[in-house]
């Protein structure tokens, strides 16, 4: 998996701490997914512990962090269907100042790396129209709930607030698990 700023386990911590963490991960035999769980707990979710609403958890996610989320979400879903599947998952995120929509397509077309697009750019125009239409259809859910998932044909749409804790690698794994379970349900 390619690395980005948000992929690094220590989020810009001083090198000795990052090295120490790396050594501990190796010593404990934690794989990449387990390392992500530890990292997100320590650096994001703990800011919500004991009724706290810390900025580490509630600040706006950086574009790189949303890209990491999208990449992990796609990887989880593609891992589930396996290498032998004719279809792969394409993931695109469209965001504005307040919220974002994750569009997941299960497609036969060759899929590029996930895209994260600002809603007011030309590249995002088609998805932004879809986002506005779906938001209109489900306005009450978008307003009251932290997240909304819509299944339409081969596509799945996730609506999420732009808060860091919704865009962690842990959350990508949880969201993928939800999508798999709900899609499999009779």
């Amino acid at each position, binding site marked *: 998996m390619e690395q980005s700023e948000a992929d690094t386990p220590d989020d810009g911590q001083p090198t000795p701490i990052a090295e120490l963490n790396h050594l501990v991960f190796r010593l404990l035999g934690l794989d990449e997914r387990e390392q992500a769980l530890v990292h997100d707990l320590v650096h994001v*979710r703990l800011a*919500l512990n004991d009724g706290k609403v810390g900025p580490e958890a509630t600040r706006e996610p950086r574009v790189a962090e949303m890209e990491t989320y999208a990449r992990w979400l796609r990887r989880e879903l593609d*891992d*589930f*269907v*396996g*290498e*032998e*599947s004719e*279809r792969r998952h394409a993931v695109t995120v469209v965001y504005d100042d307040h919220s974002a929509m994750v569009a997941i397509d*299960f497609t036969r077309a060759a899929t590029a790396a996930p895209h994260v697009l600002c809603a007011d750019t030309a590249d995002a125009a088609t998805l932004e129209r879809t986002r506005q239409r779906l938001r209109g259809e*489900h306005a009450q*859910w978008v307003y009251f*709930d*932290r*997240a*909304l*998932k*819509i*299944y*339409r*044909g*081969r596509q*799945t749409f996730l609506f999420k607030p732009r808060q860091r804790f919704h865009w962690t690698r842990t959350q990508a794994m*949880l969201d*993928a*698990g*939800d*999508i*798999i*379970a*709900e*899609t*499999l*349900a*009779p």
Partner: protein
Amino acid sequence: MQRRTSTNGRSENHDDYHAVFVHCVHQLLESAYQRMQPVKRFELWKEEEISGELGRHIDEVLDEFGKPWMRFYSLAPERHVDEPHLPVPKRRLGKRRKRLDFRFTCRQRKPIQRFIFEAKSLKQSSAAQLLDEDGLGRILRGQYAREDIAAGLLGYVQISTVAFHAKTLEDELVARATNYGIVANGQWTRVGFLNGPSEVFRTKHSRGKLPEITVFTTLMPFR
């Protein structure tokens, strides 16, 4: 953390995902079977002894995480079957409950998907061993796989050949299709699973008020 996600609609990817699920379960079965080679040494073993070995090897395969998709699956061998759909006085409780031979689970988040196999030794030439009240009958009556849309029968071939047993089963299912609730497009059909068992056959059955069920019958030589 409390989940606050609302869900709308139903995905058209269901059939693809479910096909992947069934395929992966059969791949796990085949991987475990290959670890039991040479299988002739099990020729005289009892069904539960072979099931125990098969289950142990499936666990080994899963523990090794040889493929990324394997982390989505787990196995519960010899799992008791609860009967919450029955009134309490009629339920089998404790050790009186029926026991499944294998129950695979795709356990990521709820709702949890399960795929059960009922295993039988084929030590006689009759098809009844797999299709009687203790085999297919349990699935058709809803004792097993009550909520599921697919389940498996596993035949350990310990006399004669796989081809012979396959023909015997097919003849019986054709001759008494109505008794077995075979639906219009549900006749005995060979299924090919890449990297799965070579002898798998599919039938589809109606079960009254319960969901229709696709039964995958796998014949594994142990001789």
